[in-house]
């Protein structure tokens, strides 16, 4: 089983599920950093808010992140500047800096124990291949008022060709922050955990259906990482997963800072996390599209092997993976969706913690009728065909390719006996594709392999023991229950005939 270090070290919110019908001004679906920070800011404005979280607060994507907070963006500010303009890139930098400052303010105001620490951000090149990119990044960051230093060495156990360092970025435990903030919400905001939303009935007042009760709300915020349901926006969001592990070292120094490699695929991001039990080194790497991993590869093992090349690793204590959605034009989509009074915040790429708080600031202003200087650049309904064309075509052709794999006879197995313990396979039963999983104790469970979002055939993710949809990133438990992604409903259950 995989578990993130953040989730393991955060306290639980212990909110109860929703059991009776309620009516609120704003319903927020999703209790991650975006949902809880938005709820906090709206509640401060005196608005009645309900947060509906399908699992536990801060336990989803937020707990799968790296816990780094920074002004920069993973696809580099100079790309945004080149694609849009100077003003847009400046606003991105400003909004992200403000979000990090807000997190710091909230941490100190409410004394949230989340190991918040100001740290430098370091971008380096080991091979020198990306020296030009580092130079351009430096110039761009300087133009936006950040103090950038050239460096020729780091505290990492390998030499670098070049690098830059920006002070005053930050690190924290994101799950602990969200959990802590959730415990400091005003009384006009209620959180319901283990309350998945199965359907949203759109109308003058939206009605959100949960297993035991309904929520009536004038406005709905989908803080679910990617909007739930079918939206045109899904054609501009490209779901990816990457892998992380936290290790204890036997000897050697833990690096202090946010370390980004300009070219490494095996350790693009490194950081240290200090707890009462000691320090952990966290590495992240190997990203691929959701549901399209290389089946012959063991990503966690490769990540560990790579870490052991540079560090004297005593033990790997935690391993987890997380999802991110790359936006077609490079900027997140934040604001009202194509449905009236339903708001979205998505497309954060790997910069989600900071963008989640940027979203909260924008959504607070949009819902209270205030002007927001960043709202226009992140507008969810923006149409940027020229800026989006290349990734849009590439990724949607990839989705089409996944659909075309669904033809009669394309299943991975013909009999249940071909599914070994701990495995999941697509089995063709009565001309239908079933997602069949055999647990470690030998029990079989089956569901239709057709994703309930947009009918793609799901694939087995052996690293995390989940069914992942390769089209739009919905993920399901072995028994078909929804974990994350745009699907509302679980995979349709199927009864096993053991003789098959």
């Amino acid at each position: 089983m995989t578990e993130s270090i953040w989730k393991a070290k955060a306290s639980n919110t212990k909110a109860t599920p929703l059991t009776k019908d309620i009516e609120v001004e704003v319903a927020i679906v999703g209790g991650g950093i975006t949902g809880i920070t938005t709820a906090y800011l709206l509640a401060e404005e005196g608005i009645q808010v309900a947060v509906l979280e399908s699992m536990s607060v801060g336990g989803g994507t937020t707990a799968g992140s790296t816990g780094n907070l920074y002004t920069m963006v993973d696809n580099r500010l100079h790309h945004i500047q080149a694609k849009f303009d100077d003003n847009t890139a400046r606003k991105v930098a400003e909004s992200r800096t403000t979000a990090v400052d807000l997190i710091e303010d909230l941490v100190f105001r409410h004394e949230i124990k989340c190991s918040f620490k100001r740290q430098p951000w370091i971008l380096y090149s080991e091979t020198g291949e990306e020296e030009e990119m580092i130079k351009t990044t430096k110039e761009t960051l300087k133009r936006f008022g950040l103090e950038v230093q050239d460096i020729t060495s780091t505290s990492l156990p390998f030499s670098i060709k070049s690098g830059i360092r920006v002070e005053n970025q930050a690190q924290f435990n994101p799950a602990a922050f969200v959990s802590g903030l959730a415990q400091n919400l005003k009384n006009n905001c209620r959180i319901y955990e283990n309350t998945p939303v199965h359907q949203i009935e759109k109308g003058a007042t939206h009605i959100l259906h949960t297993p035991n009760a309904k929520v009536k709300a004038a406005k709905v915020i989908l803080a679910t990482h990617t909007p739930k349901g079918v939206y045109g926006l899904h054609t501009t969001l490209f779901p990816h997963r990457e892998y992380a592990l936290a290790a204890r070292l036997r000897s050697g120094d833990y690096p202090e800072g946010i370390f980004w490699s300009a070219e490494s695929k095996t350790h693009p991001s490194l950081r240290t996390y200090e707890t009462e039990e000691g320090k952990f080194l966290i590495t992240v790497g190997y990203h691929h599209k959701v549901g399209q991993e290389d089946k012959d590869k063991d990503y966690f093992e490769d990540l560990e092997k790579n870490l052991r090349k540079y560090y004297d690793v005593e033990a790997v204590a935690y391993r987890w993976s997380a999802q991110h959605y790359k936006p077609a034009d490079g900027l997140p989509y934040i604001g009202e969706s194509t449905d009236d009074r339903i708001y979205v915040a998505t497309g954060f790429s790997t910069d989600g913690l900071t963008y989640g708080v940027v979203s909260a600031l924008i959504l607070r202003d949009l819902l209270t009728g205030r002007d927001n200087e960043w709202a226009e650049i992140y507008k969810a309904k923006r149409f940027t065909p020229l800026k989006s064309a290349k990734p849009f075509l590439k990724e949607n052709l990839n989705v089409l390719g996944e659909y075309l794999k669904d033809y009669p006879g394309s299943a991975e197995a013909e009999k249940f006996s071909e599914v070994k313990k701990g495995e999941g396979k697509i089995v063709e039963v009565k001309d239908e594709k079933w997602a069949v999983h055999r647990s470690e104790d030998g029990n079989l469970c089956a569901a239709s392999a057709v994703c309930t979002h947009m009918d793609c055939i799901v694939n087995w993710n052996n690293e995390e023991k989940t069914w992942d949809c390769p089209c739009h990133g919905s993920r399901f438990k072995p028994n078909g229950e929804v974990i994350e992604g745009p699907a509302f409903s679980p995979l349709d259950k199927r009864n096993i005939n053991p003789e098959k």
Partner: protein
Amino acid sequence: MIIAAITLITFAVILGSYLLKRILQKKHPPKAIVFAHGACAVLGIILILIYALTTDEHHKHWDSFVIFSIAAIVGIYLFSRDIRHKNVPKWLAILHGSVGLFGIVWILTHVLH
């Protein structure tokens, strides 16, 4: 050109009959077949349109173009429901198939005469 169009639409009808069978059995229509069906039909209709616009023949097959376009509009609606994991109305799927089949008979009758 009209023969190529008829061939493509015949393929679309054959694939469509498989899809209709799946829908009547309440089974998921495989998407590769759905896309192949749609692609054949669209290409066939485009060829009929090009033929109608460019031919000097007396019968330009505008009537067949209209019949297949009606079938296509219903098909797009059915696809939009299916891709959103919603039930496809069986009666509408039968109507869609019937219009397509009628179209093939209609165009063949005119071509063979």
